């Protein structure tokens, strides 16, 4: 229950003044009742013309004081009564709360509890919001007196004209407007600065220049006089911008020479610089050290300080610091992303060029020689690979062929494949004698392959229609299979180590009849030992068996190629299967059967 009185009827014992008004409340101190009392007291003080700031302060003061009574036994005991008396003086307001609970001890020094404490701030709030206070604890009575000064009530004046009233600012509303203006100003400052810096960032300003401008602006708008922006570089924190303070050298994370920076990094929380008489002169008296992150990754530390003042940064300024740090993080991430994209784009283009070059090294069109049909296939496991084949017409009597495989895959292997192909092409005087050509190629390529720690397997041969033979030389490559008209399959096994392993290699040559109805298959090891999947020909004998079974039934090289592609599970229009682990290359030559 509450009611208000004039000064003339002030109860005895309450400080009194000539001018004043009294408000009384009495009731059982439940939390809900105290809250209602606080709202009613605020309304009473509002009618007296107190500033908005004081109304809010008294609403909070009465809540804290009354809650103490309720929580110290007042609420649970139905016989308890709390009396609240408020008296408005000319320049101050006094409140007296009387209760009959056990009470509590008001400490000599009231301080804030730890940041993570969930209680213990009520007394601090009461001290902070009052100009004086006293707590008298008696055996059966406790009296808390709170007093708060204010600038004074506005003088009572005759009613002003309506127009004038509209133009006279209300002090309470002015205060709210000031607070809102300050907050809006901070937001506007952040926003406009971010727009401006975003535009700068697009103009290819270096990150260091960008960081320095950002920091300079931040120091200004937060009323600070020094700042430092340090970013993570590897395992170190490196200063990227400093304003009003000396830039330290790069340091290991968590071992910073900047005061408190390592604490902020270790705790991953803002660290506040607060007034400390023991702090050496020349160091900031107030400020904030803000570690900023991208998800869990530490990106850097932004420190803002004041040498000239120990006034702590307010919430709006802290908000600006956080916003700028987040904005800077996004800029760093954006630049990282752009750099990665450029690198990936260059690498992708290089791969495309390499693949294009490799495709251009394969025969654009296989030679047409009456009596022979040819079909080739070369599919890399990656964009580019180390397999190749080549077919070169020879004296209008046949042609010279090569099927090769450079150890490894990718751009390096493809480059070496191009070099090897060129070497065999250059040995045109030796095409008639493949063994000699292979030995010569071995000597020419040895130094390069040895230096690169690579090797090349190759099968070469020459089809001689005049003599009706195919002469084959094999350096470490898969056997070249020749199916004879009677169904027999001859296997031309390697007779020489791969190119690159022997400086002066010696090679033996196979000479196999290649009469009408004969078929030849030269292939790379991608057909027999793919590394992560099923092999169509687990062993070379399987390839020979397949040749024996299929060669007689397929007349042209294209027919035999289609059958082989089906066997290895490759559909040409769809490219290599996803399971293909190795390059797959083969060359098929068939000698047309004589008409019956």
């Amino acid at each position: 229950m509450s009611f208000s009185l004039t000064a003339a009827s002030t109860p005895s014992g309450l400080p009194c003044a000539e001018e004043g008004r009294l408000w009384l409340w009495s009731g059982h101190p439940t939390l809900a009742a105290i809250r209602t009392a606080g709202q009613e007291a605020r309304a009473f003080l509002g009618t007296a013309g107190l500033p908005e700031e004081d109304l809010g302060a008294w609403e909070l003061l009465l809540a804290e004081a009354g809650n103490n009574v309720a929580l110290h036994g007042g609420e649970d005991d139905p016989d308890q009564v709390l009396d609240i008396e408020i008296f408005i003086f000319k320049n101050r307001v006094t409140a007296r709360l009387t209760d009959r609970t056990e009470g509590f001890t008001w400490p000599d020094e009231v301080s804030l509890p730890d940041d993570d404490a969930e209680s213990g701030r009520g007394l601090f709030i009461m001290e902070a919001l009052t100009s004086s206070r006293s707590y008298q604890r008696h055996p059966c009575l406790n009296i808390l007196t709170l007093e708060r000064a204010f600038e004074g009530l506005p003088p009572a004046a005759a009613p002003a004209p309506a127009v004038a009233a509209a133009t006279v600012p209300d002090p309470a509303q002015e205060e709210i407007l000031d607070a809102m203006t300050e907050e809006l100003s901070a937001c506007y400052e952040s926003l406009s600065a971010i727009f401006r810096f975003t535009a700068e960032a697009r103009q290819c300003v270096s990150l260091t220049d960008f960081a320095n401008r950002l920091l300079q602006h931040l120091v200004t708008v937060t009323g600070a006089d020094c700042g430092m922006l340090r970013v993570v570089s590897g395992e170190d924190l490196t200063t990227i911008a400093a304003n009003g303070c000396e830039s330290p050298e790069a340091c290991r994370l968590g071992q910073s020479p900047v005061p408190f920076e390592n604490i902020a990094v270790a705790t991953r929380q803002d660290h506040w610089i607060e007034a400390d008489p023991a702090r050496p002169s020349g160091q900031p008296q107030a400020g904030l050290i803000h570690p900023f992150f991208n998800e869990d990754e530490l990106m850097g530390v932004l420190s803002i300080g004041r040498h000239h003042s120990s006034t702590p940064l307010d919430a709006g300024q802290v908000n600006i610091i956080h916003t700028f740090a987040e904005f800077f993080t996004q800029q760093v991430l954006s630049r990282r992303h752009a750099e990665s994209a450029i690198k990936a784009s260059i690498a992708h283009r290089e791969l495309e060029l390499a693949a294009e070059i490799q495709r251009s090294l394969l025969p654009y069109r296989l030679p047409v020689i009456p009596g022979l049909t040819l079909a080739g296939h070369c599919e890399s496991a990656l964009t580019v690979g180390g397999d190749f084949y080549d077919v070169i017409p020879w004296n209008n009597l046949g042609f010279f062929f090569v099927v090769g495989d450079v150890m490894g895959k990718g751009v390096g292997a493809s480059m070496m494949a191009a070099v090897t192909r060129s070497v065999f092409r250059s040995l045109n005087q030796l095409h008639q004698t493949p063994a000699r050509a292979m030995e010569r190629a071995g000597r020419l390529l040895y130094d390069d392959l040895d230096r690169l720690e690579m090797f090349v397997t190759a099968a070469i041969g020459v089809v001689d229609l005049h003599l009706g033979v195919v002469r084959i030389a094999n350096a470490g490559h898969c056997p070249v299979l020749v199916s004879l008209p009677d169904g027999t399959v001859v296997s031309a096994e390697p007779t020489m180590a791969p190119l690159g392993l022997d400086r002066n290699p010696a090679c033996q040559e196979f000479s196999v009849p290649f009469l009408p109805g004969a078929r030849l298959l030269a292939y790379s090891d991608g057909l027999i030992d793919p590394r992560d999947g099923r092999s169509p020909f687990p062993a070379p004998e399987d390839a020979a068996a397949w040749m024996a079974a299929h060669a007689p039934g397929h007349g042209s090289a294209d027919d035999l190629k289609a059958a082989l592609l089906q066997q290895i599970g490759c559909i040409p229009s769809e490219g290599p299967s996803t399971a293909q682990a190795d390059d797959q290359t083969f060359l098929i030559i068939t000698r047309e059967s004589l008409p019956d």
Partner: protein
Amino acid sequence: MNITNNEHSLTISDVRELTAGTANETKNKVRLQFPPELKHIDFNCSALDFLDSSGLGALISLQKLASERGGRFRLLSPKPTIIQVLEMTRLHRVFEIVA
């Protein structure tokens, strides 16, 4: 009080007062409606007109709740009077405040 789950965080809004009389109820409701798959909590203060020391304790409790799951706790759009209470108790440096 309105509690919404927006897939990334739990948002508490439409709280006009956070006081000794409402703090426990608020904490309990949030705990009950904080799904295990979420870890972030946003407390929308745009409707909050009054905050006392018990209300501050409730906010710290909610911050711990998010922190236990490795999440963040933010105060969104607090009014100047609320910011004054946070600054007075120096909790503006503890909470992430989004104006």
